[in-house]
């Protein structure tokens, strides 16, 4: 489903990975509220990890808290924060980049081989994991909402450093 952005913000490019990039998605979730209301509640804390996205090629992580139809909190996360997340999606920068670029080309709709589920189901290139299988299942319970959350990145330009 094609997502909408406020015109004045649509042209400003945002770096990936960064908290700002995910905050931009959180803002778009408000803009696209009708779509998310149609999909239903989403209540979880999702961690997105870019395995080589930090300084010196180290991992970089952000945690996004979803409540009802909004992303209410976005914060960078360190190794000690992992228990706060219900589940983690981790992949290399190249994988995230390819997925984001495909979604942008599809104007908010990934092709058949770049959905979150496609990329994560075999365990690679995206690995979804949690210390608790019940909390990991939240990734499946809210899969469509999470997909639309990421799809909204097509509404603004992303640039990749390095």
């Amino acid at each position: 489903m094609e997502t909408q952005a406020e015109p004045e913000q649509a042209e400003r490019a945002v770096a990936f990975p960064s908290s700002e990039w995910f905050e931009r998605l959180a803002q778009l979730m408000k803009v696209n509220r009708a779509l998310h209301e149609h999909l239903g509640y989403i209540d979880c804390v999702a961690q997105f990890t870019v395995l080589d996205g930090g300084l010196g090629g180290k991992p970089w992580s952000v945690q996004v808290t979803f409540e009802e139809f909004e992303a209410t909190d976005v914060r960078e996360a360190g190794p000690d924060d992992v228990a706060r997340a219900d589940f983690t999606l981790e992949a290399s920068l190249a994988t995230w980049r390819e997925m984001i670029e495909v979604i942008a080309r599809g104007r908010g709709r990934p092709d058949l081989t770049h959905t979150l589920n496609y990329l994560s189901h075999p365990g690679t290139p995206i690995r979804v994991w949690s210390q608790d299988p019940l909390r990991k299942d939240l990734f499946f319970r809210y899969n469509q909402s999470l997909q639309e959350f990421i799809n909204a990145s097509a509404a603004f330009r992303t640039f990749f450093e390095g």
Partner: protein
Amino acid sequence: MSQASRIESLRPLPSSRSMNEEEVARYESEFKQYATKWAEILDRNADRMKRGSYSLHWMNTDKAAWGKRAKPSSRGLTYTDVNHVPGYGVLPEKATWLNFAPRGSVRDEYAAEMPIVDDYTLVNRDESWADNVVTLYEEAKARQWNATRDIPWSELERLPDDLEKATCQLCTFLTEVEFVAGDFPAKWLYRIPQDFLEVKSFLVTQLMDEARHQEVFRKRAIAGGGLLHASPGFEWALKAIIDAPTHTMGTFLLNLLGEGLVLSIFRSGEMIAKTHVDKEIFRRCLQDEARHVSYGELELKNYLDHAPNREAAVEEMHRFADVGEQVILTSFTEAALVEPVAILLGGGLDKIDRGMEGQGRLWKMSVEEYLQRCDRAGFDRRGRCTIPIESPWGQN
């Protein structure tokens, strides 16, 4: 001959027994037997009405939790919000109200005149309760979707013959198996007393989910070419679920194991989908399925945690699982399931071997997920699991 006399001269039609003679006779007999109870109520009411008198006893709030009003949270008025009001949220460990009188209503003083519903046999809370059932019920309502309207059917593309047949066979399998997850809870739903209304409500959402899954896969197959082959292996797995001796055992086999494996198939279905229509179908379904799996995990955990003799309860579950796993395995080794998935995974009939290799990797992951869910429920199957960790075709 006048019209009237012609009718009078006709012989009466031969008398025929009612098609439901015995059932109706039993019903008559039963309610005549209880006539002193309900007929007294009827007479009393009729007498009062004849006198032009009002009772207004129902306005008496002495024994009610009256006036403690439920307040909505940000997402509306949920069962959790209502259950926080004193007088409404306490579930009995054992239901003694075996009729429809609502939990929290003024009902004690009417007990002697109320009937007993003999079908309410699942009277212990720990035979059906799960700590996440209220959350799952609210989530299920919020995340309902419509298989007629929410799937972009007009975008359905024609696939090469081998891929279309494989897709339609996979949909035939799913059409065949999905509604056992409706029939099984339905079989137990009417046995759960009204005091456990949250469980009953959640099970109704599961019924609706499964109706929609059966609908969407049937539609997808018929829109793409048609339904293909039913399979005896599927049928035995379904029978093993529906015939499970207890609600908890059947919920373990259906929700935790069966739906856990079907969740993997839905995830595979989304991954191997050759059209956006199919991706949307599988993504929507896997969300519903994951809710059912979550209920199964915590229902089993709650049952074992509260069993009077945990060790014996665990051993009994193991005995059941030893059989159940094998029967479910029969279904998941059927050619009518394994081969179409392999063709879709590989990308065509000529690449079926490659698809089987990929499926072998997914098998291992699915079995590990099953064992993790058992662990989470406090049911360690790792030493006793009868489903091979490696796929049967990957062991050669």
